[in-house]
């Protein structure tokens, strides 16, 4: 058993998100809409040593498997993340996130004059660029602090 695993206990059923860019764990929780208020059992490791990343974060969520939308946004702030689906203490599925061509309904456009910020029946949509994302409606490009624009609940 490695030092990292000792720090964050095993879960019975749920998702382990590993190899999160160091310091991004709280943003991952924001993407998942987890703020502790609804009683989810969550373990977080931050800035733990990693052979691959130097430092990484880990989030383990009991009783929850991630939607594709959530994984898509995760890929933007944690491109090296791996998703482990756990059932009965065993990892039954393990895959890396991959950057989607677009993300829908998960980021809000920072352009206050973008039509998606008004009371219209559309979800935000962002094209994923090599660096950052671009609003499909107003063309605004976000390169930094993507997590600050996450609107998924």
């Amino acid at each position, binding site marked *: 058993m490695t030092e990292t695993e000792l720090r964050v206990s095993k879960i019975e059923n749920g998702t382990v998100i590993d190899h999160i860019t160091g310091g991004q764990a709280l943003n991952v929780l924001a993407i998942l809409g987890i703020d502790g208020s609804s009683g989810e059992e969550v373990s977080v490791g931050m800035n733990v040593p990693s052979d691959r990343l130097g430092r990484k974060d880990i989030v383990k969520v009991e009783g929850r498997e991630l939607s594709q939308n959530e994984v898509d946004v995760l890929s933007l702030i944690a491109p090296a993340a791996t998703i482990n689906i756990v059932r009965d203490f065993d990892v039954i599925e393990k895959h890396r996130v991959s950057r989607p061509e677009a993300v829908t309904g998960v980021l809000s456009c920072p352009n206050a*004059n973008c039509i998606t910020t008004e009371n*219209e029946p559309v979800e935000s949509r962002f094209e994923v660029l090599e660096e950052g994302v671009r609003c*499909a409606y107003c*063309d605004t490009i976000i390169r930094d602090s993507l997590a600050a624009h996450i609107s998924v609940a």
Partner: protein
Amino acid sequence: MRHDHLISAKQLSRDDIEAVLDRAAEIADDPGAVADAREDTLLGLCFFEPSTRTKMSFDTAMKRLGGDTVDMGSVESSSVKKGESLADTVRVIEGYTDAVVLRHPSEGAAKLASEFVDVPVINAGDGAGQHPTQTLLDLHTIRENAGFEDLTIGIMGDLKYGRTVHSLAHALTNFDVSQHFISPESLRLPRSVRFDLHESGAQVREHTEIEEVLETLDVLYVTRIQRERFPDENEYRQVAGQYRIDAEMLEAAKDDLTVMHPLPRVDEIAPDVDDTDHATYFEQAHNGVPVRMALLDEIL
């Protein structure tokens, strides 16, 4: 040109542009030949913010093609005032008309509208975003006066919020054009436009002083420095005067420099330029009718 909607100048290929401009030139030569071309066609004019040239030239163009227009009227007198969404407004107007021309203060409005209707949506300006039909008439004016071969164009003024500039910059990447952007640092091109220009491999340079580049230009496209964009009036005063041209200044320019402006102007082009051979902005405005006739004839 075969697009369901015209939302952005980025949609326009060189072939698309030349097809519209060629048709516009034919129409300008013989407008009577298309007097009945779009009989029974009804165009919806949905202008959510004030417009003189764009609205009147679309209205004129449709009527000169034998069709007609219906006008949503001012926002104050429409259901928008009651809180109706844009999506609902255009879905209603879709049932009345064969195409919708949309001017809206928000970026992305035309794109959104196009997702809710089956009739063509033509973007007549969306906030600081795009204004592709202005670009077509700008390109027509450039082609008639300076051509597109080995062209050096300066685009000066409010490049950050100027939608005509954004559309023109994109469209010019289809041609052998060197683009020089002249503006205060605070009003330089937005990141998204610079990104697209870079991706397209366009020849682009940015300047803060017109004098750095004036004598090399074949075309100077001037836009208004918008006082309301500056948080500080003093900051506006410091830069505004630097982006004003007059006849004396243009003595340093090429004799055949074409000076353009999407209008309305305030004080960025002195009235004494009007009497020089450089002044092309009124011709540019007049070109709105044959170009929009050509566009409507192509798209409908």
